[in-house]
């Protein structure tokens, strides 16, 4: 590769090097992962904001069909909410076990978290199934389209979080609580608690406010 000389008598590489910081400094492994992951979560937050706005705008259009008051089963939603809350604190316990270097305790708490996550998904899918079976699928009205999109997107996040959780359990099981695995567990911790924050919005705006409409 021939690099043409520049008027300043610098080779191309030197010129590039003088403008850009090409050399990796001795950053510790995973430097700024936390901030980067947080910014990813914030972009996710914007996606949910769009879906909440869509639900807010369309959520009152029932197209002559049933509304939230008759469709939503609040005791079931309360149960679902408690599953997610429990999974948050059990994930917290696994982080505490991780910080004190207890591999088995970390894995056990992660497994319990997974069970709560799966219970949440099961309840949500049951709810979706009942809605669709009774002719209130996403195609029924604008209200139901936006409902399924918003709540379904949250459910998808929980699904991928659960897959990620299983992946990390395998990682920790095979390689132990290495620095890299700890970093991954911390990222998933942010992700998992963040989903709980989104769910606060879902149960408040979609289920509770919907029932009040």
């Amino acid at each position, binding site marked *: 590769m021939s690099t043409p000389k520049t008027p300043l008598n610098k080779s191309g590489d030197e010129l590039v090097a003088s403008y850009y910081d090409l050399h990796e400094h*001795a*950053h*510790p*492994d*995973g430097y*700024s*992962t*936390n*901030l980067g992951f*947080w*910014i990813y979560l*914030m972009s996710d*937050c*914007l996606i949910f*904001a*769009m879906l909440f*706005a*869509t639900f*807010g*705008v369309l959520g009152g*259009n*029932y*197209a*002559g069909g049933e509304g939230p008051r008759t469709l939503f089963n*609040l005791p079931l*939603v*309360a149960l679902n*909410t*408690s599953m997610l*809350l429990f999974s*948050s*604190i059990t994930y*917290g*316990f696994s*982080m*505490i076990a991780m*910080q*004190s*270097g207890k591999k088995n305790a970390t894995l056990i708490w992660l497994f319990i978290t997974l069970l709560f996550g799966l219970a949440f998904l099961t309840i949500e899918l049951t709810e979706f199934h009942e809605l669709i079976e009774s002719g209130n699928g996403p195609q029924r009205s*604008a209200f139901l389209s936006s409902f399924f999109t918003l709540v379904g997107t949250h459910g998808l996040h929980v699904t991928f979080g659960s897959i990620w959780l299983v992946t990390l359990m395998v990682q920790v099981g095979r390689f132990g609580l290495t*620095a890299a695995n*700890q*970093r991954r567990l*911390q990222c998933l*911790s*942010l992700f998992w*608690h*963040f989903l*709980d*924050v989104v769910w*606060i*919005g879902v*149960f*408040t*705006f979609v289920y*509770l*406010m919907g*029932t*009040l*409409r």
Partner: protein
Amino acid sequence: MADHSHHNDHGHGDHGHDSGFHASMKDYVIGFVLSVILTAIPFWLVMTGALHSPAATGLVIMGFAAVQIVVHMVYFLHMSPKVEGGQNLLALIFTLIIVMIVLSGSMWVMFHLNQNMMPMPATMDGMG
């Protein structure tokens, strides 16, 4: 708790990769108890209709949601100005501003559109 035992090699001064969020049992328990209370009350209010006014109930449960989100941010997500030199917090505040604009803007615009584009006296139900 041996917090810093496994982060010995901070090659780069202050901004080590562990970023300072060290969970403590106390944080999680406080966060959990507050969350249970802040979740139970809105559900109870809506399910029993204790306030007798949907508008008032709506405002109250929105207040509870806002407080609970802050509780989660502080006790579970360990948000504080200290983490990553406050950059996480700045990103969060920026996002919240955008979220507020998106939500309030959409609702405001669409509410007025609905008002201005409903010339027919008949209900719009069934036209979808």
